[in-house]
């Protein structure tokens, strides 16, 4: 915990006014001016005492925001408790201090500075304040130290307290909503309907009859029907079996070796590819598709095909944790057969049919515009990111 005092411009001006009044009180024998001079001096002392006393032993805690998403507000909450027994806290700003260690990419490379504001916290009372960050990139966002600053009550002398509280949160890639039709096309058979599984469950729609096999439940026997040889038959029911999709992100080629037209931003293209994968995954899971993920070229484990919100979070966390600066591995990617799941391969620069089976879809980041439900938004955000990246070239990439 580190305490510091800050003298700001308002304080200097105030000091100048105080000295002027003191000078006037010395030159003109006016007791009223002397009293005002004393009051001005007194306010300086009080300003230091109150702002210092209120922040003394302050307790600050950052509540884990779990995760954020690119271009969406990330609300970081802080629990603040005043340490003074008598002086309440007023007008305290809580802000994140950039990491002193330059080796780490701290939150400053993700989002602009944001601060939380505490109007009031009584002595020993805990209040929750929130700061809103809007991350502009995907990855692991590291918070290092917290600073509480206040120049209450008069704004003359500021006091700040810095507390080290490290925290890492994942920023999911930017996603956009994909057209339902596009997902259906990727799945081939469409989303609707279930497939009849080999097992006999006790639930589900009626699918047909088959001969009794040892081990079948007695409850599944159709007592009113018999085979011609009077052997029993059982009712076969359709088990719900959602469509399956395997997403393969092709990151085998290092960023610098991407075969893009000159002037295009390689890293940005990779990010777009990741964002494309995340968008397909998000829309697919929302439509009830089970989605699996393979990231070729990295050491990250494969994610099995699952559905549901939790799996989507896991999948996006997986994509958020991709370190593009790490070494690319030439590891063989296990590709499932077409009858198990539809395969969609997202390449960064060029389509490589060698990755994936014969029925696989091969897509490039540029195809996102065709797939997006609102193509204009995608174009705008792409242009925006290119502007922020300093590149003005347009690289459409290859078509699928």
């Amino acid at each position, binding site marked *: 915990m580190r305490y510091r005092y800050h003298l700001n411009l308002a304080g200097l001006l105030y000091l100048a006014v105080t000295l002027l009044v003191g000078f006037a009180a010395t030159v003109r024998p006016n007791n*009223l001016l002397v009293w005002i001079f004393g009051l001005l001096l007194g306010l300086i002392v009080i300003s230091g005492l109150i702002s210092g006393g209120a922040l003394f032993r302050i307790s600050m805690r950052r509540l884990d925001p779990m995760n954020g998403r690119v271009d969406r507000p990330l609300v970081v909450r802080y629990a603040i408790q005043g340490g003074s027994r008598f002086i309440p806290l007023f007008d305290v700003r809580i802000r994140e201090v950039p990491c002193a260690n330059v080796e780490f990419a701290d939150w400053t490379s993700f989002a602009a500075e944001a601060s939380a504001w*505490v109007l009031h916290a009584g002595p020993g009372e805990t209040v929750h304040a929130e700061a809103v960050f809007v991350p502009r990139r995907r990855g692991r966002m590291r918070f290092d130290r917290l600073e509480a600053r206040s120049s209450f009550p008069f704004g003359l002398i500021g006091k700040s307290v810095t507390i080290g509280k490290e925290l890492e949160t994942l920023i999911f890639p930017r996603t956009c909503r994909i057209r339902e039709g596009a997902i259906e096309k990727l799945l081939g058979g469409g989303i609707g309907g279930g497939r009849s599984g080999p097992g006999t469950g006790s639930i589900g729609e009626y699918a047909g009859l088959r001969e009794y096999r040892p081990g079948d439940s007695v409850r599944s026997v159709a007592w009113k029907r018999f085979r011609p040889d009077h052997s029993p038959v059982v009712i076969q029911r359709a088990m719900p079996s959602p469509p399956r999709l395997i997403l393969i992100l092709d990151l085998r080629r290092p960023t610098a070796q991407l075969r893009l037209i000159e002037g295009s931003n390689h890293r940005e293209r990779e990010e777009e590819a990741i964002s494309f994968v995340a968008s397909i995954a998000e829309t697919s899971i929302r439509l009830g598709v089970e989605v699996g993920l393979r990231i070729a070229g990295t050491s990250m484990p494969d994610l099995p095909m699952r559905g549901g919100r939790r799996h989507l979070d896991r999948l996006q966390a997986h994509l958020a944790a991709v370190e593009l600066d790490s070494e690319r591995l030439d590891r063989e990617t296990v590709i499932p057969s077409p009858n198990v799941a539809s395969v969609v391969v997202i390449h960064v620069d060029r389509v490589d049919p060698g990755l994936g089976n014969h029925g696989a879809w091969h897509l490039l980041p540029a195809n996102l515009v065709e797939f997006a439900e609102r193509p204009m938004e995608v174009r705008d955000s792409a242009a925006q990111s290119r502007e922020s990246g300093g590149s003005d070239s347009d690289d459409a990439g290859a078509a699928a």
Partner: protein
Amino acid sequence: MTPLFRYRRYLRIEVLLAVTAYAVALQTFELMFILGAAALASGYVSDGPRGRYLPMWATTILAAILFGWSIFSFLENPDPASTMALVGRLGCCLAVLRLFGRRSAREDRQVILLAVVAVVGACLYSFQFLFGFLVVVFSLHTVQVIMLNRLQSGLEDARADRRGLTADLPVPPVEGASGRSPITQFRALVVGCTVVACVLATGVFLIFPRKIDAGGASLGSRTGFTPEVDLTRNDQLEQSNREVFTVEWADPQGVPIQWPQPLRLRGAVLDRWNEADRRWMTSAGRRYLRTVTTSGDPDVFVSLGAAEIGRGLYTQTVTMRSLATSRVFARWAPLAIACDQPRTFTIEPADLELEDTITGELDRFTTYRLLVDPNPSPEVIQSIAGDAIPPVRPPIFKVPGVREEAERILAENAPSLLEPLVDADEEGQWRRNRQIAETFTNYLRGDDFRYTLDLRRFVQRRGVDPIYAFLTEYRFGHCEYFASGLAGLCQSLGIECRVVTGFVAVEYDDSIGRYIVRESNAHAWVEVRTGRWSWREFDPTSSEILEALQAGRRSWADDWRWLYDRADFLWTSRFVTFDGTTQATLADRFGEFVGSGGRGAFEDAKSMARKVNQYFQLGPAGYIWLGVVALAVSLAVIAIVAEVRRRRRIREVLHAGKDVPLRRIREAAFYLDLLKAFEAAGCAKPGSTPPLMHLEKVLRVRPDVAEAARPLVELFYEVRFGNRRLDATARRSVAESVLRLRAIAEGGL
């Protein structure tokens, strides 16, 4: 609700206070009415529900016009002394103008700064009590407004941070994190800061280096007493009706009477005209100063030097109202003095000028009495003066042209007085001097001369003496000019005379049998030497003019001035006139107090008790009464503090918030005594255990206590949660039960 909910209103009050203080200091009430009304209107126009603001360009143009007006005013009268007044006026106008504009916390800070500039500027022009009161209120209010402004600034900064954010989803608005009862705690903090700031300001005020005998600044252009006659000022004097003191003039039998002539009370005596400084001064120095010390009893007179104080003397009793001065105002000729405090006075035997030495006292006297002989015999004056009165010698008055003017006046009005005296004895010479002075007095009272307080047309020119200019060119002015003219004419002809400043009492209040002396009664006249041991008053200013002036300025509010003037006296006595001497006295007393380990404080308490006793005129039994009253007040304070603490403790124990009415607290108060009984029994109840559960534990340790406490605990549940009401009888019964329980717990039963 946050502390900011009345921020705008407080800011408006801040500006109103600044405008009022400025107007009171500079006596520009038309400005107060215009700007005050505008500031109030801004509350509806700009800060009201419709929120109509002046556009930026209009604000800028109006500010430029105001600035130009101030520059023009300065160029019209380029007096450096009025610069801060113009700056203050500009500050007031701009602050009010700002109230009509769209503004953030930053602009609000500008409004506060402008208001502060206006008030600090006004401080240079006034030392009145009302202004001082307004300044103190303004200062304390400013503390609160600045604190509110900080909160507003923090809120606006947080909102600005959020406004700059763009995201795919809406960014949540700013919600200032706030704990419980922020308004109460904010107010408490404001009060704490204000008190501490006041204490520190008073500390600085006490130790600030000052000149010795500064006696407060003589600021402002207002009628009133000054111990000097300065003819360099040429502004317009405001007529002030402030009561400075009252005078009881009692005949030798002790009956208050009204004197047939205006009662001239001498304050300062000046006998030499300083041409370079253009003011009257005292030439003789203070070589013959004599000191007398009063006992503190207003009935015990101390002789000022007369061999014996005979009968047939008039008694002059002066009670100060607003004036705090070291000067003693006395009718000619004072022979003895008494004061309500033990004081040391100095007397100049040459001219019987009296002054308080103000050593060893923190404040000024409030009442003194004088034995006065209105027509003293030469022997009496001789006995007082002794060798102090210098031998007869012609005065030095070298203003060119005045002697010629004096001879011209005599040639026109009394040519015989110009002829040299042949074989005249000393008495003849004195008679001739008197005649010349009378001639000049009549001349100055003539139609050629006009009395006025407006001296703006009296242009002071380099090389032209103001007395000469008054006599020959302008022929208008106030009493100081008339007295200076008469003294100048007399001294130019070699006649010994002196200018006397003080008050002339003309307003007699029959209901109280006293003269009311106001600041507007401050006056200057001339004393001409008419004998070896006698001086005679000549007043070139007609007393009818003074009475007419005063009657014309009276208003109904003057009848209530005595109330205000009491406070004004305290303000002037304790604050305005606080100077190096008082500071040294205070330091000495503090040193004595520290050195004597509080014995001084005890003496002070005794002295105060004596004063209170004298005031109520209770005699020796008064001390007993005072002791009884002090004891009763102390007991009452202790009882109130104990009751407040007990109620707070009950609320804490019962977890009852402010919403629980006081009568319910009172009815459940026995629970606190019940807990104390448990504690006395050695089984204190933890805060987390319910009473009934605790009772079971007590049952295992002290079954006797538990059995006695059970009905009380059940009763507590009924009162606290079952809405059962206890009347006075029931409460008494419960109290007895608790007492019995306490006795059991302590092993008494």
